[in-house]
């Protein structure tokens, strides 16, 4: 029965997190939707933690290891690529006329 207490606690966290996400996000203006989408995209790269835990706490079998290493690679791409791309998009919004246009062009 104990494990279901844990489940219910986690479900409480899940539901509250859903509402938190709902409230935070609903205030973002249209103009920032693409960067926002990209940032939330990076945040779900948190799945890399799952791969780290399963791999790091020990797992047998070559195939299992390969699967998890690919998962770590995927998750890392998601996180690092996601945050960098978002930063590049957002940097565009700060630009003062004339200084960065050439550098960013291409």
């Amino acid at each position, binding site marked *: 029965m104990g494990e279901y207490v844990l489940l219910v606690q986690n479900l409480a966290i899940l539901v509250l997190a*859903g509402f938190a996400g709902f409230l935070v996000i609903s205030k*973002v*203006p249209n103009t920032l939707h693409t960067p926002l989408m990209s940032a939330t*995209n990076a945040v*779900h790269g948190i799945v890399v933690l799952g791969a780290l835990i399963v791999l790091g706490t020990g797992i047998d079998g070559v195939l299992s290891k390969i699967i998890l290493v690919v998962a770590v690679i*995927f998750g890392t791409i998601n996180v690092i690529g996601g945050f960098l*791309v978002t930063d590049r*998009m957002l940097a565009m919004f700060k630009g003062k006329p004339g200084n960065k246009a050439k550098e960013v062009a291409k």
Partner: protein
Amino acid sequence: MSWIHDPVFINSLYIISFSLFIYGLMNLTGPRTAVRGNWIAAVGMGIAVVATLLIDEMGENWWLIAGGVVVGTIIGVPSAQKVKMTAMPQMVALFNGVGGGAVALIAWAEFRHTDAYAHEPRYVAIASLFAAIVGSVSFWGSNVAFGKLQEILPSKPIGLGKLQQFVNLAVLLVAVVLAVLISSGGDSELLMIGVLVAAAILGLIVVLPIGGADMPVVISLLNALTGLSAAAMGLALNNTALIVAGMIVGASGSILTNLMAKAMNRSIPAIVKGGFGGGGAAIGAAGAEDRPVNSTSAADTAIQMAYASNVVVVPGYGMAVAQAQHVVKEMAELLEEKGINIAFAIHPVAGRMPGHMNVLLAEADVPYDQLKEMDEINSQFGQTDVSLVIGANDVTNPAAESNPDSPIYGMPVLKVTQSRSVIVLKRSMNPGFAGIDNELYYDPKTSMLFGDAKASVADIVEELKQL
């Protein structure tokens, strides 16, 4: 056990980490704080990773972990730095896809590791299998979305027609039945592979029949799904950081999807049903043949704008494809020097993602205050002398307001027809992504300037310089 490996300490770090996610996303609500917000969220991610590596039971396979992170970094950093601003939607689709793929793979490894969840509570199996299905759908669906936007795959809908719904449901049912077999004791790995493959097929056949016009909504939907699958994985692994971060993305993605669908006057079920991107194309093209349109030249366009007092530029996906944003900015500067008021009318779903036009114009250093949102600019078209439509189509279609039979009837559009004259830069008379003929082009006030958007605007710039 040293205190740094104490679960209390690690979970405290997780609390800090997801507080930073939420605070970071709050900062993303304004252009001035957005950059900071992104980095706050990134710091949160860094803390979450460090906390995870501190978990006491961790200690195996350090080399594999390090190797995976290094390879991921080597792939992720250059692709994020090199991608063109116009290719951003595809990139988001791709990053979203690998996230979903990671979830599906973790679920598969969990299955192997726990001997088909033999000693786990039932809910762990259910959450993990849910994550496997949704992650796999998201991975393959995102890859199709990437292929369509990158034009590796045709952006037209590819589907099975009337059978589509039935086949989709049947494949989903197969995935669910296999998952139920596993959670009720089935331990053959073939069952797990079956779940992943069925979900993969589902991802492919759900996104393939969706036309290019609906792709932004689809990417947003898949983004939300990946978040939900991450949250489910968090339940299975009993990891708070995964639950919170995954669920925030699930919630935000759902809202964004809804907002985008609403702006296009489409319902999410109708989009998933597919077919919209091409069904009307044949009708539109047939109607277009025999109706006269006015065409104009770059020189005339330049003169018309030079003697105007208010000019509104309406950018669309055509501007993005032609990479015309820098030359558009040059044109805007020339017009400003002549004392002409210039504004950019930004439709929320112009381009292929909400905010797509803002990103491009900001890249070209167009001042933020010249970008007007739809509600603001729509009241100003009455005082506008020239509306210059650059590669925008469906978002200017007056049929959305006047023709109840139109598939986009009810979608809010930019009211360019209220301005004194309209010039449309367009490659040809082919209908837009939605495949619907645009009444605007046949309006006597409208002139068409055919050609590549970048070349046409460059010509206009040359003409303006000589005036």
